[in-house]
Structure formats: C-alpha cells, structure tokens
C-alpha cells in the first residue's frame, strides 16, 4: 500500500482543505484501515462520524491514524448511510470508537462484536430514553459465579462510573466498565465556535489535563489561523507547564498507589509533593491547574528571571523530596510484592486494543507523542523514552517514576533556556487573544496531538465555509485505555481492583466529555 496516495498525510498540528481528504469507497476504506493498523503498525488516534455536508442523513466516517515511525498522521474518509460493516469485527482497536459512533449518530455497525452505548446519552433519534448503567451485562451462567456491582458513587472523593465484576470466588473472570455519568456534551457545545467559552470548555474536558488540552487546542488554532501562531518562547513555556502538570499527576498517582497497599509514608509525602508541583504551576499563572495560562497565540503571563530562578530552586528541592519518598517506596519488599505481577496487561493485548501513554509504555509499546510526533520545544529538546515491558502495576509505577526523573531533567534545561531568552523573545510569548481568535481558515480539517500525562490526546476540527467549527472531536487518552483496565483485571483477585485501577488512574470526565 502506498500510504501517501491512499491517505491525506499531515504532520502533527497541521491542517489541509477538506477537499484534499480522500473519500474512499467504503470497502476500500475498511480494507485500507484494517491493513494499516493490523499489518503496518499504525494506531487509531481518532475515528468518528460527521453529518455529510451535502446529503442529509448520510455520514462521513473520518479516520486519523498515527504513523509513529514516519512521524506523520494519515487521514481518510468514507461516506455511509444507515449502516456499515464494522471495522471492529476484524480489528479490535476500532471497538470503542465504533460504539461511540453508533451511539452518537444512530448508524448501525453491522457485525460489531459488542454493540452497546459507552456514555448512555439520550438518543438523537427520539427513541425512548436510556438510563445510565442499565444494560445487559455479560454474565456467567453458573450458580457458583457471583456478580459485584460498584458505583456510580464510589467510596472516596472520585468521579462516578459503574464497574460490574463477574467473579468465581475471589477471582474476577470478567470486568465490564460502564461510563457516561460525567457526560456534559462538550463536543456539541464546541460546534459553531470558536466563541467566548470554547477555550474554557476545552480546559474543563478533563480538569487534571488542562494544560495539555489548552495547548492541543492552541496548536490546532495555529494550524488554522496565522494570527494564532505562537513563538518558540511561548512553546517553551507551554512545555514547562505541561511537564509540571505531568509531574504533579505522576507524583499523586504514586502516592495513591502507596496508599492502596497501605504504605502510608510515601502516600503522605507524595500527597504533599504533588501540591508543590501544582503550586509551581500557580506561580506561572495564579491557578493550580494552569487554567487560562495557555492562550491561542501564546501565553497569558511571562516569568521574569527572578521567578525562573525561584522556580529552579523550588524544583530542585521538590525533586529531592520526591526522590526520597520514591526510593523508600521502591525499596520496600512488601510494596513490590503487591505491585509485581498484579494486573498484567499483556503487550500483545495492549497493542491490539490500542493502549496509549503510561499504560502502553508499561506494556512495552514504544509510543510517546513527544518523541513520535514531536512538537514545539520537544523538537530540539527530546526526552528519553521510558518504557517497561511487564505490563503489571509495578511496570506502570516504574514508568511514572522514570518519567518524573526525565521531566525533572527536561524542566531544568528548559528553565535554563528560559533565562537565556532575550527581552524581545520573552515578549513574543505573550498573547492578548482573550477574545476568540475568529477568522479561522474555512473548509479545513486540522489535527493536533499532545502527550498528556496519561497519554495521547487528539483534537480534530473541521471548519465550515465561514471558518467556524463544523465538528470538534476530542479523544482523551482515557478513551483508549479504559478497556485496558478491564483486560488487566481478568483472572485477577477482586481485592486487587483498587491498585489496578490506580495504576491506570483514568479520567471519567475526559472519556465522557
């Protein structure tokens, strides 16, 4: 297959006229996508349906595949109406996407192995309403088996979701995860934008991923409007904010993992250290989650050399505390015993279903958007890839630990680079795009990928003839990974669910949107 003629090829953070997107006959489209994923090693970054512009009732299926080796994205489309032969039947990586497509559009994905809603949204077709979590769960027809239902309201301070375990004694045979409780309709609200609330909606898609989301959106806007181009200095600071976001969350996760195996010292230490990273973010922009820091075209605030020096000292001190807390954790045999061989997600399964980010790297997948589709400050300042292979809780913890060290080193260099910027370069980072940066190029398709702390975040936008969003598609890393958690639980003790869950620590709101 010649990738360059079959697909529209774009680098990360670029746009092309929709007219250049090849619209393939469906049989061709299906065969090409399946071949690209199962044989050529491409990954499904996004797959969605949008109403066809000229034929009411028809839909255009649009696929965005990541070609990690070529550092490029491959896009193709096909037109369908009412139903089509599911790709999932031959390629499990499309499974969740097709469940979403069926739910959102009413299209029937024939031969889909498991056609069920993923969010329990109200049907647009006017059919009877659905109730969240009310569905036919896979059950074991055996009197010895029992079922455990948990959620949507969980025991702690955590988002809602429903987990249904089928068990034989203590052993989980099968786990089904039913989400949608956090569905706020963000993608629908973005249609017709950009408007005054678009940036805030995007930052709030997943609140712990605000920087990655805002940056993803800013780069997408840059691809669609020359007024939204950001200077290298702005991109450097966005990278600094993203690595702080990653450090805060990885630290929090390692602390929570320690807590789940009742290892209180590291739990307590990391609970506090996570806050230090959030406070460093707040030092940049006033908000612990970085809300409003990344604007289209640049940044809201600049940091002077005094602030950079303070951040450097702060970072060093915090990293020493973190190292101490984590050395203790990974040096405690009772902790390692609980982490090792628990919740194994086999590399082959992870690859087949398209797991991304930390969980993917823990199962031996070598993908990290900062390296495979480098952007902004990662282009000439690469980080090292932190991959493990065992796919267990320990591997997921180790990936986080190694990434914390990598981010720390990167932050050190990036902050130093920040002090070397000239006054003009510094000033170029500032943006005054508080207003929607209207005037996007009309009739375009744009794609932007980020390595958010959980993994790949993908935004795709289609603009109409007036340069307004006709469709805005967000794929949060959790969208790819929830199914991985379900797989990791198979054959596991039910009492291991909390640490398995924490080792993935997926977002409910990022999935539900």
């Amino acid at each position: 297959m010649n990738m360059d003629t079959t697909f529209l090829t774009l680098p990360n953070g670029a746009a092309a006229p929709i007219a250049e997107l090849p619209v393939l006959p469906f049989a061709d489209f299906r065969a090409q996508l399946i071949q690209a994923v199962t044989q050529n090693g491409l990954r499904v970054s996004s797959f969605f349906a949008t109403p066809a512009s000229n034929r009411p009732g028809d839909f255009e299926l649009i696929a965005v595949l990541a070609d990690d080796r070529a550092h490029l994205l491959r896009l193709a489309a096909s037109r369908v109406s009412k139903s089509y032969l599911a790709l999932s039947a031959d390629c499990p990586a499309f499974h969740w996407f097709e469940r979403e497509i069926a739910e959102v559009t009413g299209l029937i994905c024939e031969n889909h192995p498991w056609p069920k809603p993923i969010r329990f949204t109200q049907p647009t077709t006017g059919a009877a309403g659905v109730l969240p979590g009310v569905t036919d769960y896979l059950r074991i027809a055996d009197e010895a088996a029992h079922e455990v239902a948990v959620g949507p309201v969980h025991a702690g301070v955590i988002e809602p979701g429903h987990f249904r375990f089928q068990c034989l004694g203590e052993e989980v045979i099968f786990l089904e995860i039913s989400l949608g409780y956090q569905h706020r309709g963000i993608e629908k609200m973005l249609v017709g934008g950009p408007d005054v609330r678009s940036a805030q909606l995007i930052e709030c898609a997943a609140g712990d991923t605000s920087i990655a989301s805002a940056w993803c959106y800013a780069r997408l806007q840059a691809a669609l409007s020359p007024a939204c181009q950001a200077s290298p200095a702005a991109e450097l600071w966005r990278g600094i904010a993203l690595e702080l976001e990653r450090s805060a969350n990885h630290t929090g996760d390692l602390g929570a993992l320690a807590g789940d195996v009742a290892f209180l010292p590291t739990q307590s230490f990391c609970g506090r250290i996570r806050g230090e990273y959030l406070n460093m973010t707040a030092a940049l922009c006033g908000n612990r989650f970085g809300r409003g820091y990344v604007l289209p075209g640049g940044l809201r605030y600049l940091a002077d050399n005094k602030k950079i020096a303070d951040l450097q000292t702060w970072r060093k001190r915090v990293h020493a505390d973190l190292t101490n807390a984590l050395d203790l954790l990974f040096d405690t045999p009772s902790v390692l015993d609980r982490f090792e061989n628990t919740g194994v997600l086999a590399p082959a399964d992870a690859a087949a279903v398209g797991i991304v980010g930390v969980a993917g790297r823990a199962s031996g997948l070598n993908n990290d958007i900062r390296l495979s589709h480098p952007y902004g400050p990662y282009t000439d300042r690469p980080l090292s890839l932190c991959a493990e292979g065992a796919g267990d809780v320990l591997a997921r913890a180790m990936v986080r630990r190694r990434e914390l060290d990598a981010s720390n080193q990167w932050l050190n260099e990036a902050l130093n680079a920040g002090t070397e910027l000239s006054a003009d370069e510094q000033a170029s980072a500032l943006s005054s795009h508080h207003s929607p940066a209207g005037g996007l190029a009309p009739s375009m398709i744009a794609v932007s990928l980020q390595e958010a702390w959980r993994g790949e975040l993908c935004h795709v936008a289609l603009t109409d003839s007036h340069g307004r969003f006709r469709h805005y598609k967000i794929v949060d890393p959790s969208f790819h990974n929830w199914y991985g958690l379900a797989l990791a639980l198979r054959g596991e003790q039910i009492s291991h669910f909390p640490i398995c869950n924490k080792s993935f620590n997926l977002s409910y709101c990022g999935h539900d949107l």
Partner: protein
Amino acid sequence: MYKALKARLFQGHRTGRFPAVAPTLPDHFQGRPQLQAGPCPKDCSACEDICPTKAVKVSANGPQIDTGRCLFCGKCAAVCPRQAIAFGPEYRLAAFTREQLVAGASAAAWAPPTAGNVQCRDFCGQSLKIRQVSAGGCAACELDFNVLGTLAWDMGRFGIQVVASPRHADCILVTGPVTRNMLLALRKTHDAMPRPAWVIACGACAISGGVFTDSPETHGGLEAIFKPDLYIPGCPPHPTTILEGLLRLMGRS
C-alpha cells in the same frame, strides 16, 4: 522500618499553619473581584461580551460579577477599557446564600458573611462528616477538595472528615453541574443521609452550571435540586477557599 523513619525525618513537618497564619497565595491569584464604581462608557459591554458564563453584568454603577457563575478567568478584566475590573487576593469567597455571591462596586471594606446555618454550626461545630459526590464537572474541584485530606492541610485537625457511606454523613459536598446521568445517583445519595442533610455546592459548576450552564446534558448546578447551605465559588476554588468556607460553616472562624 529504619529507612521509613529516616525518610520521615528527612521529609520533616509540613502541615500548613492556616488558619493561624494567612495562606501564601501565588502572584497572579484571582480572588474576589474588585470593581470600580461609576458609569461605564456609553454602549460598552466588552466584559459581558467576552464572559464565557454571563457572570458579569454592566449596571448603572459599573460592572457586577456573580461569583457563583464566574470562572475567574480574568478575561473581563483584560478587556475593560476603564480598568474597572480586577481580581484581588481575597480568597475568602464562600457564602451562605446565592445573593451574597454577587459582587458589586462598594466603597466599604468587604468582609465574608458570618451568619451561616445556625443549626449546622451548633451541631457540626466540632465534627463535620462529609460525603462528596461528583456530579459532572472536570474533576479539578474534587482534586482540590481532596488535597485537604493530605498532610499539607490535614483538615482532620478541625474535625472534618470524608466518609464513604452517606449514612454516616452530616453533609453532602457536590461538585459538577449535575449531569443528566448523575441526577438519580445524586438524589439517592442524598436520600440515604440522615436529616437534615446539609448541602455544600463546591465550584462554579455546582453553584450555577459553570461553563456547562447552557448544555442540555446538565441541570445547571444544584440550585434547582437542593438548596445549598454553603456556596464555594471558583473554577476550581483554591483549597484554602474551600477549607475557609467549611470552617465558617462550622462557626470556627
């Protein structure tokens, strides 16, 4: 054991000293709006036009901001030609009624309201058991409430504790705009609590729907479902803002 003790010594004592000592807030912290009185230029509605949540309104006496809707994004301040809008360092934002959340221009020094729910104060002054329910939103409100349990804040010092069962809870702390899919679970959780079951709305979403106000998938906050006894503005509120609000509800500050 020896290693754990050594690490414990290395890490030191890190619990913050709030409320005895005022919190250190970041430079660009956006607290309670400070609004200049006086008429705005004719036909100017720059702040209203840029606000993502319709939180700011231009009145005859300058802008007014409903902090229950406000995301503290600061965009209105950036576009105001009169520079009539600023967000100050005041972090004590919590209020007991919806009306108290509206900030207008005033010459008098502002102080946070003290007359909270007397019954709650008398009953829970020394011990407040909270069941948190996340009902939509972006999870940042939960995260910054959750940090109050870490050793940096240690809200247990004040008798505040998160409980798993609604049966053990004095109050429910809700985050998120209440999505259609969470309404039933939220009601069931509230029904399972012993009465009077006080209600706390934490964050712009829970108070007014926040950035999701106009979404048909949400109910636009708690107001239409249960009347809150405490409102904590912010998107998300700073942990100190949350803790200070809880202490005021308990009559402890």
